[in-house]
């Protein structure tokens, strides 16, 4: 197990390196000069040249990359080229907001998906199955920015049930924090809920057809016990895979939602940094996103072992 873990952790390094090279090239090869963004209404040829020199943009691309990499290896993520804020601070300041939003969205998606998916599977072909399927199609089809706008208009602007935008840290006031996070979390989690429901349903249908389910029923176990104890745990293995990917995708998944709700998270920082060609911040966020995906995948593999003892990493 330890060897397996170490091997997986070491494998992350080359993957992260490849990701950063790819992103570095893509960003730098795309048109747009950060100096013009930084200088705004105060640009002059001398000022542009000065900014290029300060940011090291006058050096060859590979030199710029290795300077950045060298700094990262030494624990220096650099400073934002537009705000001079340390990149590590910029990201860690916004990470709690993104994690709170991502986790509440994920919980929302699971609270909706698992019961609905289970009901749809158990009552396959019934009206409740069709309603659940309809909800799924709607959830996947409607873009989350549209769900966000509808939620803002109805629950915030018209009914005044929830505040518009703004963020209160969980540690400052948990209740207010939850009030602020609910709308963006519902907007963000709905598509995930639909996908998770489909996976729960199909996996559950498959499991319910297995011999051991019939055996359990024959031995006199109640239908409820068979569904929730014998079937559901096994049916959740593919769902865990998907949820794992969703956890890894919290950072980039929140990009649109955070923008619509002016949520001060990493997603909004990413959008702003891309528009401003803030290379150092983009690189930092991409690195973080890559690691979060890899770690989420690793955790999923470990959870498999818990859900199904037949899977072993010895």
């Amino acid at each position, binding site marked *: 197990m330890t060897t397996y873990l170490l091997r997986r952790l070491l494998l992350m390094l080359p993957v992260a390196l490849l990701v950063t090279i790819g992103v570095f090239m893509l960003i730098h090869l795309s048109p*747009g*000069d950060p100096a013009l963004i930084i200088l705004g209404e105060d640009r002059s040829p001398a000022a542009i040249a000065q900014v290029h020199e300060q940011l090291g943009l006058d050096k060859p691309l590979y030199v710029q990359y290795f300077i950045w990499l060298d700094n990262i290896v030494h624990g220096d993520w650099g400073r934002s080229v537009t705000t001079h804020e340390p990149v590590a601070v910029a990201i860690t300041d916004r990470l709690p907001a993104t994690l709170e939003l991502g986790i509440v969205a994920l919980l929302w998606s699971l609270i909706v998906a698992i019961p609905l998916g289970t009901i749809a599977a158990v009552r396959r072909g019934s009206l409740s199955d069709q309603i659940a399927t309809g909800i799924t199609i709607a959830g996947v089809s409607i873009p989350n920015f549209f769900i966000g706008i509808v939620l803002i208009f109805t629950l915030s602007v018209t009914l005044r049930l929830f505040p518009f935008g703004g963020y209160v840290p969980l540690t400052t006031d948990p209740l207010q924090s939850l009030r602020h996070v609910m709308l963006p979390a519902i907007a963000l989690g709905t598509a995930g809920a639909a996908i998770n429901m489909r996976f729960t349903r199909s996996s559950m249908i498959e499991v319910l057809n297995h011999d051991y389910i019939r055996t359990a029923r024959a031995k006199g176990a109640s239908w409820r016990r068979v569904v929730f104890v014998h079937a559901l745990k096994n049916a959740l293995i593919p769902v865990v895979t998907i949820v794992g990917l969703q956890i890894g995708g919290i950072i980039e998944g929140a990009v649109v939602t955070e923008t619509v709700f*002016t949520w001060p998270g990493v997603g909004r920082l990413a959008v*702003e940094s891309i528009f401003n060609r803030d290379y150092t911040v983009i690189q930092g966020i991409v690195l973080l996103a890559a690691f979060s995906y890899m770690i989420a995948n690793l955790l999923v593999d470990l959870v498999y072992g818990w859900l199904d003892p037949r899977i072993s990493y010895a």
Partner: protein
Amino acid sequence: MRRVAVGFACLFLVSACGGGGGGGGQNAGTPQKGGTATIALESELRTLDPMDSSLLVEREVFYNIYDSLFTIDPSLTIKPGLVKSWDISDPLNYKFTLQSGIKYQDGTAFNGASVKANIDRYKTGATSRRKSDLASVSGVEVTDDTHVVFHLSKPNATLLATLVDRAGMMLSTDAVLKGGQNFSLAPAGAGSGPFEFVEWKRNDHLTLKKNATYWHSGLPYLDGITYRAIPDVNAILSALKTGDVDIARVIGAKDVASVKADSNFVYKDVPAIGFNGFELNAGAPPFNDPAKRKAVAMAIDRYSILKNINFNIGVVAYGPVPPSSWAFDSSEKIYDHADAAKAKSTATGFTFTYKTTSDPVNQQLAQLLQSELAQAGITMQIQTEEFATYVQECASHKFQACNVNWSGRIDPDGNMYAWWHTGGDFNDSLYSNAQVDQWLEDARTNADQAKRKQDYGNAQKQIVEDAPYVFTTFGVSAQISNTKIHNFTLYPDLMIRMAEVWKG
């Protein structure tokens, strides 16, 4: 080139862009002390240091933290600020008498040495964006604590107006040193203005608190201000409606009528100082042919743009100097209503590409221009680009037509010199006319305002005639707030000054 981000966000989408308006009685009553106001900013700030600032939203905040050497009144007349009186009879040596007894929020004194330290910092700082503002200042001589002399390398009639804005904002040198590399993110105690910095959580909020020792006695009335960056005009309106913000400067032009009609809101506006329109590249085909530039300028129906895109907020523009300026000249109305027939007789049957951003209002404008030009036999193709790409291509002259607006400057020089002087910083159009250069240089160096107005009038007429830029509309500076906000004074320069505002 926040020129478009700022220009458009501020002048065009803006609730602003139109004359007159509402909210009677909200200045009435005895000022009440206390309370906080939340202000919506249309984009996030990048810095709180005037030295490296380049965004209009940053200036909106600065005016409440820092004092400038000079101020303006709502008619754009230069007034005393940290400079109490001035003698500019010698065009190369401006003598300033400073206010005495003023302290920065960190307790250090404002004096002549502080003025020199600030100007030196702006002129030499590695990341300073103020160098071109102060290029004509060769040095500051400190006579004593309350007297300084600005030595100029060449006469500059625009200097006092320049010192109203960031180049004239005075900061505590101690606070700057103490802040070190993070000063621009947390300028604690650095200003002498009505409010002082408390906290900045980027993408969420910026908090200021009352400066208890503000030198204008009895001010400010509010205990504090919170700024929230909401980079979407529809979201700003939602936040106003839910009460999450008290004041905004920008909402969509389409929403202004309904806000004016809503008794829960106050809407007021005054003519602003910028201009809207698009550049034509005189350095490359097809617009290296002056006849084709003129044809485009003639074929555009400015009234249609004002009505259909700006919802009649603002006025049509004929040149670079808006009606709010002392240099405004109504005779610049060379190309008035659309005249397709006249345009056809000038030049027709050519095609060009118009670059713009994906902003919905910019897109609507492009489509309207396209249909108007088609009537004159000119084919306009619309090329939509992501902001950073578009900025770079326009700045590096890789365009035929480019939609760029300008937020404007107090002095008309700021609306013309960099744009149309040969080799000017914003002369994306590569326009060059020796006579225009001469007028602009004369106006910059001449202290006589009547003579300057004449120079600007001549230059404007020639620029409009040559059409390196097609002017469409002038915007407005607006206040959109709830009815709890009182005593708000609108300034044409788009800045929100909060010292005298109270909430009740």
